[in-house]
């Protein structure tokens, strides 16, 4: 792997407008050599446009894109040191697998034994050895994607761009390909830049993720930072599932803070938030960080008390909805204030799902380091 801090792609103040629509709005970010970088965002957020600008299929309205230090302005897609795996894979249907993979080499003038060796090597990398003379219409979607991957990897690009690479695969295959793509990326050491709207995909594969919203970078962080320390409501809500409550900052000291939330009551934190006093803030609480208890036993109150001053980080409610997913169960709980909260609970033993059911009264508590305070 190359020096991890060396940026291979530098995007500087890039904007892209289609008529009156701004698809990408003044984006600046660096992608490091050798990393698995993911552009994550809802459809229409501009992430694909950004990827296509790196590939050269769209030209920035403003700003500059540098690949390996070289300004890409005026350089057409066929002369950029990047290759792309398209969403539809775009495997050439009239060519055998080997000819598909060899196409870029043929154009580049690589011939004979070297071309054959490189094609064989690329097909081995994607586990398609022996498929050389197949036609694309004799292959499954997953196999065609591997052909597209091999066809790009054989060019030994500085950066491999992947546009929604797993969106057309079924769930099982998608999970398998997530592993394989990460493995492949480590093996070849090429920088991967992937576009996806699927947060699971992003979290499981990426070194770093840029969450894109309305043409702008909402947050750039590692997967765990993105999940545990979202920078704003958009990221908190888009990445994973979350309960968000609006509140006012009533206490803010270096080692503790409290927020009065409408619907949830006083939320206590064991760290400061350095926000303006009395300001409107939002509290984000992940469903899995809330513990469910049978009420009346006092366990919840006790657990909450160990963590936070009495009466804080504790709530009561009634189970209104339940979704059993096997490994976890999701609860939709109506609080005494009428607000709704989502709680997930791992089924640690085979009988755990019998503990709670519709209409049950429950108590909840959460740790003082679980809520995330969002200022925007």
């Amino acid at each position: 792997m190359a020096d991890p801090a060396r940026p291979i792609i530098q995007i500087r103040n890039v904007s892209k407008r289609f008529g009156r629509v701004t698809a990408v709005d003044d984006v600046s970010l660096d992608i490091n050599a050798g990393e698995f970088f993911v552009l994550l965002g809802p459809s229409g957020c501009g992430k694909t446009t950004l990827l296509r600008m790196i590939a050269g299929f769209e030209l920035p309205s403003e700003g500059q894109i540098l690949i390996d230090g070289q300004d890409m302005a005026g350089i057409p897609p066929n002369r950029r040191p990047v290759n792309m795996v398209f969403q539809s894979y775009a495997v050439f249907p009239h060519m055998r697998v080997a000819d598909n993979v060899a196409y870029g080499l043929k154009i580049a003038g690589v011939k004979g034994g070297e071309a054959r060796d490189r094609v064989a090597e690329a097909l081995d990398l994607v586990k398609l050895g022996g498929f050389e003379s197949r036609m694309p219409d004799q292959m499954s979607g997953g196999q065609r994607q591997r052909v597209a991957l091999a066809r790009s990897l054989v060019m030994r690009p500085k950066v491999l761009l992947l546009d929604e690479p797993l969106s057309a695969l079924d769930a099982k295959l998608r999970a398998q390909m997530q592993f394989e793509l990460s493995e492949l990326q480590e093996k070849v050491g090429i920088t991967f830049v992937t576009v996806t709207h699927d947060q699971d995909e992003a979290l499981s594969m990426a070194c770093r993720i840029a969450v894109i919203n309305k043409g702008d970078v909402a947050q750039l962080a590692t997967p765990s930072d993105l999940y545990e320390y979202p920078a704003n409501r958009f990221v908190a809500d888009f990445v994973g599932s979350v309960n968000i409550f609006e509140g006012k900052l009533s206490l803010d000291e270096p080692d503790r803070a409290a927020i009065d939330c409408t619907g949830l009551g006083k939320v206590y934190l064991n760290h400061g938030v350095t926000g303006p006093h009395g300001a409107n803030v939002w509290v984000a609480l992940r469903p899995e960080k809330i513990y469910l208890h049978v009420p009346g036993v006092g366990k919840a109150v006790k657990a909450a008390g160990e963590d936070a001053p009495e009466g804080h980080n504790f709530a009561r409610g009634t189970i209104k909805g339940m979704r059993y997913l096997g490994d976890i169960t999701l609860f939709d709980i109506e609080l005494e204030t009428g607000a709704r909260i989502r709680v997930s609970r791992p089924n640690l033993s085979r009988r755990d799902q019998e503990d709670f059911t519709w209409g049950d009264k429950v108590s909840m508590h959460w740790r003082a380091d679980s809520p995330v305070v969002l200022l925007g």
Partner: protein
Amino acid sequence: MARFARPSRAPLEYSRTLWMRLWVGAVMLFLYAPLIVLVIFSFNDSKRNVVWRGFTTRYYEKALGNDQLVEALFNSLTIAALATIVSLALGAVAAVMLWRFRFPLKGTVDGTISLPIIVPEICLGVAFLMFFARVGWPTDLVWPFNLGAITIAHITFCFPFVTMVVRSRLASFNREQEEAAKDLGASEWQMFRDVLIPHIRPALVAGALLSFTLSLDDFVITYFTSGPDTITFPVKVYSMVRFSVTPEVNAASTLLIVLTVILTFIALKLQGVKAIAETH
């Protein structure tokens, strides 16, 4: 219980029902009976060709020995071949242009390009007659240049068909394949050669077949643009029929049918039937 003994068929398997088979047979008969009669009577040993008087291949010899008829057939094949080649090039380029590029008056071009198909043939024929007379098109050129006027007229109504089939094929082209080719280093021209043309190949074959057959059997427009030295096969047959329908005409027509069937068969073989089916 007898009902259950009948061979079972799936709900939509109509081709296995008797009435459907009868119906298909009737349609086939209706479509091909005239042709079958034509072929059978080409072997009729009778001058007037109204009643069957016995088998002979005499009229085939006669037709093949008829220098004017053979010359007309040869003219027709030459015109058809030339018109097909030019129509294919023009039509394919027009289709790709309309699909790929934006240019001034594109809408107008798009609208008028299929005009030669819509305009009644008789009008087109008269128009060509007047046009060639007006520009003083030379009529005394040596073969094959004397076929120029007819060939130009044929290209006019053939190339819109090529444009039509190629455009419908282009509509199914995945633009990501074009981008993939360029992404792998291909220039615009290399992308055309390696990706786009293979994609439209079935349409090119279909367009060529259409052009060839349209040109080969065109009568109306050809009638107006042909001179005494440039008789085509359909025009010649017409002039023969004006005197009497002899088995010789049947024999010549049968030869033409056999020729077209062979050509179509070769084209299908060359292309693979699957590729042709893909266009639809």
